[in-house]
């Protein structure tokens, strides 16, 4: 049986060539249409954008010609096409300036992943069984339209829900317009490590509901409260570039880094000083430091708000010694160093924000920056200019609660909702939305990433469709899968929220032709809109996403819309303001500056029964689990434990000794809401009453590399939320641990010895 049939390839306009068969199968021939700029053996470099995290770094893709075996309509063929060989940072891009992090390098494996969805799929088994059959795009589009059209016809447009990861660019705009024109509510955004608390705090402190950008390159002193800014937090590459200069970029001047966290993160490992403050009390510590600055008159007192915040007796350093676990001497010394080594900047991120008092913690740390007067100044905190004023967002957790509620209503009898109690919505004025008849999913995986969100939560929704490239725990529940192109095959635009003090828009055409029979999600949406017609069709007048980008690009920059300009932007990989090194001034005085209401953290679980704070952290390789399917990331030795292909529980060695737990022993970690088992790692740099686990493993459905591997720490988290913002307080769970067996087979370490000096005495 001849497997290699010939395919006829027709190239569409521009670089996005949609592959389609034509006419008579028996007459199909191969036509090798080489891409214009490709010669065999000679590499070309094309710009692109990295989408593995939200930083929006610019890429340069090394493309070389090669033969790829592809399948179209069930037939195999060979296509000569440009293949991506290597990703580098785009040297001109203001965020990452030619550099690229470990995850970005692994982005290559997304395009060429063996378990990518290659063609539209339709569910044939029970929901969640993973049984799909391949269908053609025509069938798929017809099916999707047939589910959406009746909603509008029967005045149920509001029962369409769109679940997506947070998007920053025209994709978000397109989805928003689509939903608005359709008559459906705004998109539900979800990500596990949601930064809503920080955005709220920045709105209050600086008037910018936005992630901050730090000018480390010109700072002399940096104190980070839990922000793993060299690892996974915010814009890691931009921050690392700044850090390099901070340390050794200015001859004779070396910045000092202090890290306040209960578990040493990769950033903390680089710090000159590590302060393991007690979890949840970071804000109190910041206020105590601020108080020293005020009381000792180490900062200019000009009678404004900030100085007055620190006057209260509650934050006297002597008072906070005990709750924070940090000595008076240290607090005083840090304050004096901050004042003496200016420009000094304070950062907060990670676990301190993921407490019930996260907003307070953030405001307190922000207040230090305001006190030090570094906001909008060289060496201080600033913000990346945005094309439109950012709005205060709703937290992922609240978004999903709302979705669960909607998904469970409208059906008599059994509610498929999870067993978690629903906290009251933040805004009672918002009228509750109705049930969900159609759910569209785009790269969001709450079944894995949100505690208590089970597959059952979506059971009542009649029709679910997913646009993702991969099948994961959430998209496996879909009835229809319309696979998106991989990022390198897509038109990409990202407006980074942070990482640059000048305006940046990353914008790039596809670097590669599509490998599989996939379609760009924005193009699919546009076609759906046109098929549905009416207001939708008018509201979205572009035929392709490329058109939409082109028209919007002119607005972004206020530039004259000429061919040359568009070409130049695409060649460069985006647009950036000329004076990108100038800091942006924040509003005078800094935001609304409501007085900071001190707040104490609350934890789930009684201290005696659950003696340990549970700290799930974003793994440098796997982030929140969204890169767990990349084999290079699974095999990357975790820099602090050297573990590969594993998940583990970090325990302080003295604590472990007390509990008779040795390295590699299988331990059970139990909260009030669940338990899991994982091998123990005796981690010297963690507080004795804290245990930590990297997030990312424990997938049930997520390609061959991540499925069935390890445990998911998110699954045992308590539904605690930040009291004002409603974001998931993922650091507020308490647990108990005990040894249950030998887990060494589940813990693969690349490294052997953990210490360089021999501690054993002869």
């Amino acid at each position, binding site marked *: 049986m001849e497997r290699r049939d010939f395919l006829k390839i027709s190239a569409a306009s521009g670089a996005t060539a949609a592959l389609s068969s034509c006419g008579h199968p028996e007459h199909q021939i191969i036509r090798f249409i080489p891409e214009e700029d490709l010669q065999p053996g000679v590499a070309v470099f094309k710009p692109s954008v990295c989408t593995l995290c939200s930083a929006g770094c610019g890429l340069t893709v090394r493309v070389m010609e090669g033969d790829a075996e592809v399948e179209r309509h069930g037939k195999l063929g060979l296509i000569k096409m440009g293949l991506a060989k290597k990703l580098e940072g785009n040297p001109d891009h203001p965020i990452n300036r030619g550099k690229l992090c470990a995850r970005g390098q692994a982005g290559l494996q997304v395009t060429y992943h063996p378990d990518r969805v290659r063609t539209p799929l339709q569910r044939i088994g029970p929901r969640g069984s993973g049984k799909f059959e391949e269908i053609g795009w025509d069938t798929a589009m017809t099916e999707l339209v047939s589910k959406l059209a009746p909603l509008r016809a029967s005045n149920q447009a509001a029962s369409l829900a769109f679940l997506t990861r947070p998007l920053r660019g025209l994709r978000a705009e397109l989805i928003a317009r689509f939903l608005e024109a359709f008559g459906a509510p705004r998109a539900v955004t979800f990500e596990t490590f949601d930064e809503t608390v920080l955005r709220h705090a920045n709105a209050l402190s600086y008037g910018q509901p936005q992630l901050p950008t730090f000018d480390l390159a010109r700072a002399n002193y940096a104190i980070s409260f839990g922000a793993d800014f060299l690892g996974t937090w915010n814009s890691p590459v931009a921050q690392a570039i700044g850090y390099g200069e901070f340390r050794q970029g200015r001859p004779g001047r070396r910045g000092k880094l202090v890290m306040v966290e209960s578990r040493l993160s990769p950033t903390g490992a680089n710090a000159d000083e590590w302060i393991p403050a007690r979890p949840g009390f970071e804000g109190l510590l910041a206020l105590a430091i601020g108080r020293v600055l005020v009381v000792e008159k180490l900062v200019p007192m000009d009678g404004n708000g900030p100085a007055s915040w620190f006057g209260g007796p509650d934050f006297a350093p002597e008072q906070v010694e005990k709750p924070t676990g940090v000595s008076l001497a240290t607090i005083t010394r840090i304050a004096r160093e901050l004042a003496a080594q200016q420009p000094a900047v304070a950062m907060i991120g990670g676990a301190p924000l993921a407490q019930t008092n996260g907003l307070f913690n953030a405001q307190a740390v922000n207040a230090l920056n305001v006190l030090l007067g570094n906001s909008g100044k060289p060496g201080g905190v600033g913000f990346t200019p945005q094309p439109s004023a950012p709005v205060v967002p709703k937290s992922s957790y609240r978004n999903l609660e709302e979705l669960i509620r909607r998904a469970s209503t409208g059906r008599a009898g059994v509610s498929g909702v999870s067993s978690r109690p629903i906290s009251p919505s933040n805004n009672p004025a918002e009228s509750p939305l109705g049930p969900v008849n159609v759910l569209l999913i785009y790269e969001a995986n709450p079944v894995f990433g949100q505690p208590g969100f089970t597959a059952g939560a979506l059971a009542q929704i009649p029709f679910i469709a997913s646009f993702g490239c991969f099948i994961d725990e959430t998209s496996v529940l879909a009835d229809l899968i319309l696979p998106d192109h991989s990022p390198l095959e897509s038109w990409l635009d990202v407006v980074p929220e942070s990482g640059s003090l000048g305006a940046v828009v990353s914008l790039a055409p596809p670097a590669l032709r599509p490998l599989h029979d996939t379609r760009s999600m924005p193009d699919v949406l546009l076609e759906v809109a046109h098929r549905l017609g009416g207001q939708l069709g008018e509201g979205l007048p572009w035929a392709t996403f490329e058109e939409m980008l082109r028209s919007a690009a002119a607005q972004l920059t206020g530039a004259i819309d000429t061919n040359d300009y568009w070409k130049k932007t695409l060649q460069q990989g985006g647009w950036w303001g000329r004076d990108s090194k100038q800091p942006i001034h924040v509003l005078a005085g800094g935001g609304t500056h409501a007085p900071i209401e001190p707040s104490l953290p609350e934890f789930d679980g009684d201290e005696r029964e659950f003696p340990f704070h549970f700290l799930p952290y974003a793994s440098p390789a796997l982030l929140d689990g969204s890169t767990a399917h990349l084999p290079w990331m699974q095999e990357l030795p975790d820099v602090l434990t*050297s573990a590969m292909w594993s998940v583990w529980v970090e325990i302080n060695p003295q604590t472990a000794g007390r509990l008779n737990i040795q390295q590699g022993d299988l331990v059970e970690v139990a909260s009030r809401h669940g338990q899991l088992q994982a091998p123990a790692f005796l981690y010297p740099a963690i507080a004795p009453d804290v245990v930590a686990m990297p997030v990312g493993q424990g997938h049930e459905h997520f390609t061959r590399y991540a499925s069935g591997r390890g445990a998911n720490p998110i699954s045992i988290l308590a539904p605690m939320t930040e009291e004002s913002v409603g974001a998931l307080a993922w650091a507020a769970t308490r647990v108990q641990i005990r040894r249950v067996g030998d887990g060494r087979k589940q813990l693969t370490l690349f*490294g*052997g*010895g*953990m*210490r*360089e*000096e*021999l501690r*054993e005495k*002869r």
Partner: protein
Amino acid sequence: MVTKTIAEINEDLLRPVFHTTWRFWVAAVVLGMGVVAAYATFFYQISAGFGITGINRPVFWGFYVTNFVFWIGISHAGTLISAILRLANATWRRPVTRCAEVITVFALSIGALFPIIHLGRPWLFFWLLPYPSERRIWPNFRSPLLWDCFAILTYLTGSLAFLLLPVIPDWALVRDKSRGWRKKLYTTLAFGWGGTGRQWHRLESAMHIMAIVIIPVAVSVHTIVSWDFAMAPIPMWHSTIFGPYFVAGAIFSGIAALIIAMSCLRKFLHLEQYLQPIHFDNLGKLLLMMSLLWLYFVFAERLTVWYGNAPAEMSVFLSTQRGPFAPLFWTMVVCNFLIPFPLLAIKKLRTIAGTTLAASTIVVGMWLERFLIIVPSLSHKYLPYAWGSYRPTWAELTITAGTFTGMALLYLLFAKFVPIISVWELKLGTRHRATQALLEIVPAEEPLLEEVADLNPNVALEDS
């Protein structure tokens, strides 16, 4: 005391050559299966990949190299007995020489297989040989592996000569006593030996030269093998003591192997009259001396390391002293010294059973010693982050077991085709003492072999 007529000697020593029992076949098949399993494993290793072993990073050498050193070490049996004892005129060696030389040749052959077995691409092993190739490069003579190659080939050639030359007269004896296919075979093997004076003289000179030459070759072989390790800048490998240490250990393990072989031969071939307690006693004394020498070397090396307290070396040291390798280390000490010492030092215990038991534990202990030289050092090199561990798999165990069964099989087959005790040398010895008794003189040198031929085969000879 061998109180035997020449006819009886011939009868006893040639019986295994002429008579085959069912036990031989059973033994051959069983041992053969072990060898076949080992070969099959090796070919599977080539096809599936070296990864079927337990080798990993950083322990890139494990069981195979251990076996290599171990078997090369065992091969020093023959050298000591044949060469050194021959030059020292220790006449009690006579029944034992051939057993020993056989061990040498076979152990060397087995040992020499391992540099091929442990290669990543074993089909290219011949690149170690200097031949004009179209790649236009020689092998790298600076590499101790090349020195290994030449040393082992030289030693193997020499030992083969040393073994086979004196076998010729015995093959001639078998030829004269056999008929049919055996006669044809042994006629070829006997190389036209006629027992003339000149031939005996030449044989005697050749033996003498070989005896002198083989000793430095043997010493150099195991020194060079030790330099596979000592030349690398690895903690507790890079030691100046390795040359003499390995040679001493080799002789030590060689004697032990010889004692075990002799015990087996004695039992299975009914050679109680020829392999007597005195032989075991003397070899036992030698073994005792080597045990003490071994202990001295080990102690000297370890004391120096411990006293020096260099961090990299101490981590290796402590891993064997108290760490993960401690059970193996102390087992080795028990096997190589604590058990053998009383068995060999106390005359009452230095019996055949006693020395054999001591020799058995020593063989185990010496295998462990090779393992403990190789693996702990590789597990603990200079950068602690790169430390690792090692565990053999079924592949290495099968091949290791296969070498032991292979050795036994080779020995079994050898004893089938060659008289395992050198008939003419034994007769020479006994004749010599008989003449001495008769003439009541102490001869200054060995009598002429011609005299042996004159004797009446039915006259009883005494051996004192």
